C-alpha cells in the first residue's frame, strides 16, 4: 500500500518516513521541510507557524476592509501597514506582497480571498492527511512485525532434526523442561545426552526471568497441596501466555491452567517466539476465545512415540472428535432455536387460568347412564315374556329370501361361506341358525367354508345353536379373495399341472354348488365374492346374511340383482324368534332408550364434544 507514496528520510536516523510525517516514526525527531509551498521563502523554525496562526485574522481583515468603508481604503491600508510594521519583521515577505497587491488592486481582493481560503483548506487537508499517514504507518509497522513473526514461526515449524531415536529436537526440549511428565519421558531423559547443567541452562535461556530452579519448583509443588497430583504432570503452558498476562495473580493463573486468556493484538505480536522460547505444536496463533486443553499436550507427547501412520490416524480422530463436538454444539443451538421459536409462538396467548389447573371434577354421568341402561335391559330380559308376539314389517330382501328358501329343491347343494368376527356372532348366529335348520329339514346338501381363522370355532357355536346332529366340518380357506379367485377360475384340465392342484386339495369346488350363502359382518366380503367369484361362476345364485351395520352397503347389489336376497338385523329375525335367542321386545326397549339418550345428549350438552375452533383473528 505504501509503494505509491512519497517517502522522506529522517534527518537524524536516516530511515524512510512518509512524505507528510511531522516526526520520524523511528526516532521521534521532528521532520523539517514539511510545509513547503511554491514561492515560499525559507524562514526560521520560529516563524514557521506564525503565518498559519495569523491567517484567520488576515482573512477577516481582508474581508471586512472593502465592506466597512469603501471611501477610505488608503487610510485603512496605511493603518494596516502600520500595524503590520508594528508587529515587526515576523510577517513573511510573501504575505507582505499579498497585502501590497491587495492595496494596489482593490478589485482583486475577492480573488485573493478565494486564494487564501484555498490555502487554508489545503493546510487543513494536510493536517488530516498527516494523521491518516501516521495511522497508516503504524499499521504498516504492525504488519511488518507480523510478517517477521510468521516467517520465524515458519522456520520453527520446519522439521526439526531428529536424534538417534527419531525424537525431534522440539520434543526433547519439551521433555527436558518437564522431566516428571511421564515414564516415557523419564526414560528418554535418562538416555538423553543432556546433562543437568545443560538442562538448567536451557530452561534459563528459554524462560528468561521467569525461570525458577528445579528444586524451587519441587518446593512449590509440595506447598501446593490443593492441586491434584495429575496437574503436576501437566505441561506448563504459561510460556504461551503474553507477558502482560503473566502479571496476573499466580492463583488465578494456576486455577486456569487449562485456559489461555486473550491478549491485545499488539502485545500478542510483540510476544515473539524469541521471548517465549517455543510455541505449541500446530498452534502458531493463539485464539483469544479458544480453550486450550492440557490433555492435548499429553496427546502430543503420546503421538510423538507413535509411527507416522498412527500419528495421522490419531490426528484424524482428533479432527473427527472436534467435528462431533461442533455437531453437538449445533444440535444444542438447534434445540435452543426450537425452544425460542416455541416461546415466540406462545407469545400473546393467554396463560391457563387457575380453573384449568385445578383437577378436573370426575364426571360420573357416563357411568350412571351406562349402568342405568344396562339395568333397564336386564329387567326387560327378565320380566318381559319371550314368546310375546310382534308384528314386525318384513323388508323386501327378507321376503325374497323366504321365497327362495322355500323354493330350494332337495337335490340342490349349497355352500355356506362364513366371514365374521366374534363380536357379530350373536346377531349372525341368530339369523343363520334358523336357515341352516330349514336346509337340514329340506334335506339339502351343504358344506361350510370360512375365510377367517376364528371362523372354525365360531362355526361350532353356530352349529350348536342350530341344533345339528352331524354338521359338516368347516374348511378354512386361507388367502381370502385371492384364494376364492383361484377356486373360481375354471382351469383347463389339459394345461393345469397335477402339482398345482395341491392348492385346491380338500377345498370345495364351486362348480358343485347351486347356491352360495354368505354369512358375514362386512360388506367387503360380499363385494369380494361378487367381484372375484360370481363373475367367474355365473351359474351360482348368491344369498347373504349380513350384520345390520353393513346392510346398507350391499343394498345396491340386491337392487342390481347380483344378490338374490339377504337377511340382516332384527327385521331378518321376524318370524324366527324361536331360534334367535334374542328378545325382540328387549331390542325395542333398548332402541327407545338409545333414541332418548341421543336426544338428551343433543339437548343437555350441546357442543361439549366439539373440538375448539382455532382462533382466526389472532392476537395483537
Amino acid at each position, binding site marked *: 500500500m505504501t509503494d505509491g507514496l512519497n517517502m522522506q528520510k529522517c534527518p537524524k536516523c536516516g530511515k524512510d518516513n512518509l512524505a507528510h510525517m511531522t516526526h520520524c516514526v523511528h526516532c521521534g525527531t521532528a521532520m523539517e521541510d514539511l510545509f513547503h509551498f511554491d514561492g515560499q521563502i525559507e524562514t526560521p523554525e520560529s516563524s514557521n507557524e506564525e503565518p498559519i496562526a495569523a491567517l484567520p485574522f488576515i482573512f477577516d481583515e481582508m474581508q471586512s476592509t472593502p465592506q466597512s468603508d469603501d471611501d477610505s481604503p488608503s487610510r485603512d491600508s496605511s493603518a494596516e501597514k502600520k500595524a503590520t510594521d508594528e508587529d515587526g519583521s515576523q510577517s513573511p515577505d510573501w504575505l507582505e506582497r499579498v497585502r501590497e497587491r491587495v492595496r494596489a488592486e482593490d478589485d482583486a481582493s475577492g480573488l485573493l480571498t478565494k486564494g487564501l481560503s484555498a490555502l487554508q483548506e489545503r493546510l487543513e487537508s494536510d493536517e488530516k492527511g498527516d494523521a491518516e499517514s501516521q495511522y497508516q504507518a503504524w499499521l504498516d509497522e504492525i504488519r511488518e512485525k507480523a510478517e517477521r513473526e510468521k516467517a520465524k514461526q515458519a522456520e520453527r515449524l520446519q522439521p526439526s532434526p531428529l536424534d538417534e531415536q527419531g525424537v525431534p529436537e522440539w520434543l526433547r526440549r519439551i521433555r527436558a523442561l518437564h522431566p516428571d511428565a511421564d515414564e516415557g519421558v523419564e526414560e528418554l531423559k535418562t538416555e538423553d545426552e543432556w546433562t543437568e547443567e545443560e538442562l538448567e541452562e536451557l530452561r534459563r535461556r528459554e524462560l528468561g526471568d521467569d525461570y525458577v530452579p528445579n528444586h524451587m519448583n519441587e518446593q512449590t509443588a509440595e506447598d501446593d497441596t490443593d492441586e491434584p497430583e495429575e496437574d503436576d504432570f501437566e505441561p506448563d503452558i504459561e510460556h504461551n501466555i503474553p507477558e502482560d498476562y503473566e502479571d496476573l495473580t499466580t492463583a488465578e493463573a494456576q486455577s486456569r491452567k487449562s485456559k489461555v486468556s486473550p491478549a491485545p493484538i499488539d502485545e500478542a505480536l510483540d510476544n515473539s517466539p524469541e521471548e517465549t522460547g517455543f510455541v505449541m505444536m500446530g498452534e502458531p496463533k493463539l485464539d483469544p476465545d479458544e480453550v486450550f486443553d492440557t490433555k492435548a499436550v499429553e496427546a502430543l507427547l503420546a503421538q510423538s512415540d507413535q509411527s507416522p501412520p498412527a500419528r495421522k490416524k490419531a490426528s484424524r480422530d482428533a479432527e473427527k472428535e472436534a467435528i462431533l463436538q461442533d455437531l453437538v454444539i449445533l444440535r444444542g443451538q438447534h434445540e435452543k432455536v426450537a425452544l425460542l421459536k416455541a416461546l415466540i409462538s406462545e407469545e400473546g396467548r393467554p396463560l391457563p387460568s387457575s380453573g384449568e389447573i385445578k383437577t378436573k371434577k370426575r364426571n360420573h354421568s357416563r357411568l350412571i347412564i351406562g349402568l342405568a341402561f344396562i339395568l333397564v335391559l336386564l329387567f326387560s330380559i327378565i320380566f318381559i315374556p319371550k314368546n310375546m308376539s310382534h308384528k314386525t314389517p318384513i323388508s323386501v330382501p327378507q321376503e325374497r329370501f323366504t321365497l327362495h328358501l322355500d323354493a330350494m329343491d332337495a337335490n340342490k347343494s349349497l355352500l355356506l361361506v362364513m366371514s365374521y368376527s366374534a*363380536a357379530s356372532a350373536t346377531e349372525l348366529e341368530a339369523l343363520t341358525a334358523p336357515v341352516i335348520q330349514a336346509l337340514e329339514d329340506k334335506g339339502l346338501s351343504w358344506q361350510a367354508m370360512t375365510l377367517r381363522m376364528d371362523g372354525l370355532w365360531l362355526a361350532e357355536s353356530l352349529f350348536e345353536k342350530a341344533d345339528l346332529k352331524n354338521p359338516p366340518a368347516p374348511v378354512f380357506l386361507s388367502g381370502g379373495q385371492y384364494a376364492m379367485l383361484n377356486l373360481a377360475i375354471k382351469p383347463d384340465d389339459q394345461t393345469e399341472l397335477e402339482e398345482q392342484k395341491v392348492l385346491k386339495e380338500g377345498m370345495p369346488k364351486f362348480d358343485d354348488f347351486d347356491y352360495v350363502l354368505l354369512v358375514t*359382518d362386512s360388506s367387503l366380503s360380499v363385494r369380494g365374492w361378487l367381484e372375484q367369484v360370481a363373475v367367474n361362476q355365473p351359474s351360482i345364485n348368491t344369498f347373504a346374511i349380513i350384520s345390520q351395520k353393513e346392510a346398507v352397503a350391499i343394498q345396491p*347389489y340386491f337392487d342390481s*340383482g347380483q344378490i338374490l336376497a339377504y337377511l*340382516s338385523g332384527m327385521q331378518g329375525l321376524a318370524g324366527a324368534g324361536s331360534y334367535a335367542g334374542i328378545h325382540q321386545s328387549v331390542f325395542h326397549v333398548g*332402541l327407545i332408550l338409545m333414541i332418548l339418550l341421543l336426544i338428551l345428549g343433543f339437548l343437555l350438552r350441546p357442543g361439549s364434544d366439539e373440538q375448539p375452533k382455532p382462533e382466526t383473528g389472532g392476537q395483537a
Partner: protein
Amino acid sequence: MSLPDLVLGIIGLALTVMVFSYLIKDNVFFGIALYLLVGVSSGFATLLIIRSVILPMLISPLTQPGTQAFYLALVPLLLSILLVLMLFKRGSRMGRIPLAFLVGVMTAMALMGISRGTLAPQVLSIFYWFSPGIVAGWSAIRWWGLVEGIAILIGVVAVLTFFEDRQRKISHKSPSSPLLKGVSKVGQVFLGVTFGALFVGILSSALIALIGNLSAIVDFFSHLFAG
C-alpha cells in the same frame, strides 16, 4: 350345570364385567381383557397358519425334491425370505420385491373385479329401468320402478358433483357454478341419509350384541340357581 359350564360361565362373566368396567374409566381390568383377546387370537391364528398354510403348501412340497411341486414351492419360499429381510435395515430393499409383487397382483385383481363385478353391473342396473325395451314390455308402467331409477341416477350424479365441488375447494380452484353448487347440496343430502342409515345399523348391531350377552348372563344365573 356341569362343572366345565360353571367355570366357563364364571370366566365369561368376569371378562364381561372387566370389559364393562371401561364405563368407569380406562383401567387395568379392561386392558387385561383386551390383551387376553388379542393374545389368544394371535396364538390361535399362528397355529392355524402353520397347520393350514405353511405345512401343506410350503414344507410338504419341499420334502419332495425333484418334483415340480418342489420347484414351485421355491418361489414362495424365496419371497418369504425376502419379506423376512425387511426386519433388518440392510435387507429392507430386498423386502420390497415380494411387497411389489403382492401390490401388483392386488391392484390387478381389484381393477378387474371392480370393473366386472361392481361398476358394470351397477351402471347396467340403472340403465335397466330406463330401457325402452323393458318399459315397452311391461303391461303397465311401473311408476315406482321409474321413480326409484330416477332417484338412484340423481343420487349418483349429485354425490359425484359434491365430491368434485369439494375437491375444487381443497385445491383452491375457481368456484363452481351455482348449478353445480345446488347439485352438490343435493349430493350432501344423499350422503347424510346414507351415513344416518349406517349409524342406525351400527347402533342396532351393538344393541343386538349387548342384548345377546346380557341374555347369556341371565341364562347362566338362572341355570345356576335352578341347579
